[in-house]
């Protein structure tokens, strides 16, 4: 056989081997990708089971496409807040079938998203738990933020034994699911501390108070005498954006029946609106939009607004 034919055959062999090598590399990549789904490495559910309990279901995993199959109409709350995955598993006592619970572990991508869904669902009768930065329990359930995870542990009955087991699951989560311990939410410290009701801060990633333009908004509750006031702020990309957002929000309130009022403090640069029998206040300072929402007493509302404005004005932007 001639040398040119041999060269051609050799070339074909080389190309064939290259193609096979590429295919092998792709296959290997797929296997590696499947074997390293990230969360499976981080979460060891075998360590979640409380003493005296057994797993009562397989681990269920949901993503943004099928989350509704688990929580139906509440899915948008999560999917609009950075939701990545939900893992659930039930545990039950073999000795007493009434002692059962279900663990919901929502991977929200980061601590801010996790705090958002945690704060927006916080129960009224919550008892804050000291072991976590954000955690509370009710008579049958426990809710917490653990790094990027928002966690619900729902008891299927009400009993001291079950409450203890639920608490143990929360501790198992804290001890066995690694998180970025440096992840914080610094904005929560931007609120003035005087008269602040602890543990009531909320974080709206979108549409605070029904207004689409008010995104990334933190709220906190103040109690002065018997007056309750909700203060808020949203950090915008810049001063101009803050002013535009404030103006749009003001126009939104006026368009929906709000009436402009004059602030008692003539030096106050914000706007006061009477809306549906309550006081609304909007101000800007630097790149912050802030104010007070649905305050029964306008004087108290203005006082809180001024304090918040002064505090935000001191924050480096």
């Amino acid at each position, binding site marked *: 056989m001639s040398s040119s034919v041999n060269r051609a055959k050799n070339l074909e062999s080389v190309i064939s081997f290259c193609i096979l090598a590429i295919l092998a590399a792709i296959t290997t990549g797929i296997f590696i990708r499947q074997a390293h789904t990230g969360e499976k490495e981080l979460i060891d559910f075998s360590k979640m089971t409380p003493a005296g309990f057994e797993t009562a279901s397989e681990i269920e995993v949901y993503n943004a496409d099928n989350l509704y199959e688990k929580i139906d109409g509440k899915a948008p709350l999560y999917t609009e807040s950075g939701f990545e995955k939900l893992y659930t598993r039930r545990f039950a006592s073999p000795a007493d079938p009434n002692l059962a619970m279900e663990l919901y572990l929502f991977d929200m991508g980061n601590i801010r998203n996790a705090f958002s869904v945690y704060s927006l669902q916080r129960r009224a*009768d919550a008892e804050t738990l000291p072991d976590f930065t954000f955690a509370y329990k009710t008579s049958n359930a426990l809710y917490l933020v653990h790094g990027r995870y928002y966690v619900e542990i729902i008891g299927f009955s009400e009993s001291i034994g079950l409450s203890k087991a639920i608490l143990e699951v929360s501790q198992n989560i804290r001890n066995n699911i690694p998180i970025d311990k440096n992840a914080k939410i610094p904005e929560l410290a931007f609120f003035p501390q005087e008269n602040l009701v602890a543990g009531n801060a909320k974080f709206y990633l979108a549409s605070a108070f029904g207004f689409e333009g008010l995104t990334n908004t933190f709220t906190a509750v103040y109690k002065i005498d018997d007056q309750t006031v909700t203060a808020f702020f949203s950090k915008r990309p810049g001063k101009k954006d803050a002013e535009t957002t404030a103006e749009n929000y003001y126009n939104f309130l006026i368009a929906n029946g709000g009436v402009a009022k004059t602030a008692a403090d003539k030096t106050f640069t914000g706007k006061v609106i009477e809306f549906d029998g309550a006081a609304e206040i909007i101000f800007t300072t630097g790149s912050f939009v802030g104010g007070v929402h649905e305050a029964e007493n306008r004087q108290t509302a203005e006082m809180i607004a001024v304090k918040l404005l002064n505090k935000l004005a001191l924050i480096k932007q």
Partner: protein
Amino acid sequence: MTEQNDKNLERREFLIRTAKAGVAIAAAGAASYLLYDKKGPAQNTESEKIVTLPNFSVPHVQGQSLSIVKGSDRAKTAAKAIELLGGIERFIKPGDTVAIKPNIAFASPPMLGATTNPDLVAEVVKLCYKAGAKKVIVTDNPINEPAGCFAISGIGKAVANVGGEIILPKSSYFKNTTLPGGTLIKDWPILYEPFRKANKLIGIAPVKNHHRSGASMAMKNWYGLLGGRRNIFHQDINTIIAELAMLIKPTLVILDGTEVMVTNGPTGGSLSDLKRTNTLIAGCDMVAADSFACGLLDIKVSDLPYLAKAAAAGAGTTDYQSLKPILAEL
């Protein structure tokens, strides 16, 4: 000479390879021709047929369209509410096959109020048999795994204890339907088979807050009949609920406001999401029943746009007072 041989060999090699390629192409073409199905996939006429749910309603009786009973015992308040509407005999005749549609969306225990209370479902099954029903079936298309939902909600056991028949959804039970004049329910699968042989339909729903629609009550309960990727309707939740109210014409609806989920619905999870309001509503007009129940959730009728939509479409009235609801307290 050698160069000439090389050329001959290359030519021979070329011809051999061309012939091989030609044979391969011919073989593939022949195989494609032989395997080609000129008729295409066989039409499954049964499954692709558009179906329509029958009208299960009973004749209107003036002044007996809505009853509201205060009390904490669901079995007693339900029995009383039905009695006030003319008794179970008005709705169920001897020999009837009754389909009951509770809300069993979740694998959630009764205590959490995310699903219809099992004692209430059992009581209605018993009343139907008492009126002479031949068969009472209880069905739903839960979003969670059906068997688990029926078991954990307690409804499976409660119904079995009183002789009802549980029908779990299977893919073959879904048929496509279209709501005439509807914008969303067009050639969409609904749970049909359990209702095919029924001639009466009773909806039993809890009163719940709902993150997307504002509230889940009698009308929203029919959402459970939808098959397919029904979550796409969450984008236009008010229209889909109104259309369901136009599509489904039940015999009776029962709305359980004994303990309502006022926050974090529709799943809830904490007992603190619930509020005891000790109210049970029965009616032939589900728009009116839902409109009344708004008060139990501390919301206004105008907070739920689907109510006005359904009323405008003729599915009922939001002015429940115009029906002169019959009130009782136990």
